[in-house]
């Protein structure tokens, strides 16, 4: 239930988003961003697991992840 037991590199996340958006970030947005990222990862892994099970694969494979990537990205399109 608590995937984020450990800290994540806040500065890195900030840099990434800042580079992509070409905007400044307020002080604590990165927490929300990381929260969103965690949700995205959850969705991605869930979809990849479902895809892997449907495809008869054992565990999550790169193929299933790649298949699930497009859908979950579209789902997280604002």
């Amino acid at each position, binding site marked *: 239930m*608590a995937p984020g037991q450990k800290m994540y590199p806040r500065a890195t996340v900030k840099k990434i988003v800042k580079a992509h958006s070409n905007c400044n970030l307020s002080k604590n947005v990165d927490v929300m961003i990381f929260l969103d990222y965690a949700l995205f990862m959850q969705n991605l892994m869930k979809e990849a697991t479902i895809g892997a099970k449907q495809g008869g694969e054992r565990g999550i494979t*790169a193929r299933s992840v790649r298949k699930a990537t497009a859908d979950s990205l579209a789902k997280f399109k604002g």
Partner: protein
Amino acid sequence: MARESHPPGDGTPTRRATSAEPSTSISRLSVRTPGSQARGPQRPQQGGLSVSGRKAAPLIATPHARAALRAIDSRRAAILTPHRGRRQSLRAARETPRDFLLPLARALARNTQAIPSSSSSPGDQRTSSSAAGDGDTLFGGDAADDDDDDLPKRPRLSLPIDMEDEDDSDLQPHRSAGLEDENMTARSIELPRRALSEQPGSRYSLASNRMSDFFSGNANEMLHSEDVGIDSGFFPPINDLNEETLNFGPGDISAYERLDSDAAGHRVGEESGFGIEVPDMNESTFMIAPQVQDSPTHQAPEFSESEYANEILDARSDDESDQEPAEHNASREDVAEPATHGTAEHRAKKKKSIKVSKHGIEYPSLPPAVVKRLAQTFAKTSGAKGKISPDTLKAIVQASDWFFEQLGDDLQAYAKHAGRKTIEESDMLTLMRRQRQTNPHTTPFALAQRYLPRELLQELRMPPPIPLKRRRTADVGEEHEDVT
């Protein structure tokens, strides 16, 4: 020993054959002898049976001989069984009317006494054979009459032989043959498949696409560099060869030349790529030109993505040195994604973890350990077993890169729409609401409590401006719910 045993052997088969119960003896004999001798001569020459029995004794010992004999017998049975079936059927068909007609004829023809030769003789022989059952009548019957006389007796002789032969032929030779065929073909065909070997190529191509996105603005340049690379791909190895035939330190010299021609100082990827080439060129002098082109292609999939990126840069800077990697990367770019992104061209100077966004800002990628930890926990919660393989992790990292890119675009759009130059929590809340991650029933606080570490939760709660903004902008309804 065999010859001594023959005289009794001569005596027994004749009696058995004449006694018309040849199932055991004749079946053995037929198994032993059949290849050379036909059945016709066997029956009259029953001395020959013992001779064949001699030959059969060594043959039985070897399994291959048995198999061969069984195969022959199976063929013979396959040939002979239809005849037998016909005869039986004909016999069954003929006998029934005869059995009725003969007593009628006898009853009616007592006065006439005129008995035609063909019809009267079988009736006589039947009675005689059933009464006596001797070899003389058999031989006479075999020699004289074709169908009618043989019918009562031949089934007794031929049935057991053919039956056993059929059993053998049905069981053993077919099974063994089928198994052998299946084994050979199935294994040889099934094992090598392309799928595994083809997948990594597609993966790399997929993975390298986005890696080369920040060069995608320069697609024209890349195309030019491709052409030059392809053209020069044939020439410069020859030059290198000439140099190397002259002196033994060719790699160093060529490397220096490339360094001179380069504007950027990053040599790492190139050296790793070409340090392997050089020994090949040293070893053999003239045959190398194709090999030189081959060697980096084989080594290419081993490179990491950032090395590819570096090599693209190198190929752009100097065309002679990095033909093949440039071709690879360019082809992958062309296949996967046309150039959609912006104008900035920034060269990644470090190997990994620095990419360039479309705004020309370098950014590090999220460390894969973090991504892996997150992905693993979510994979476990979603029910997947096993660990995350490096390929999978690569795909996940790629997906997360794209995610951050998309998220940055969206946040930028929201901030610009609000007339700000800074992305604030309100933008993020808007985004999450538009993503339908938060709705009146799931507050971002609940999500944060579920997914974020405690320290971050505290940071989300503690500073006063953030909850204020949240209450103002996004979650007014939630606040009312919370209050009530």
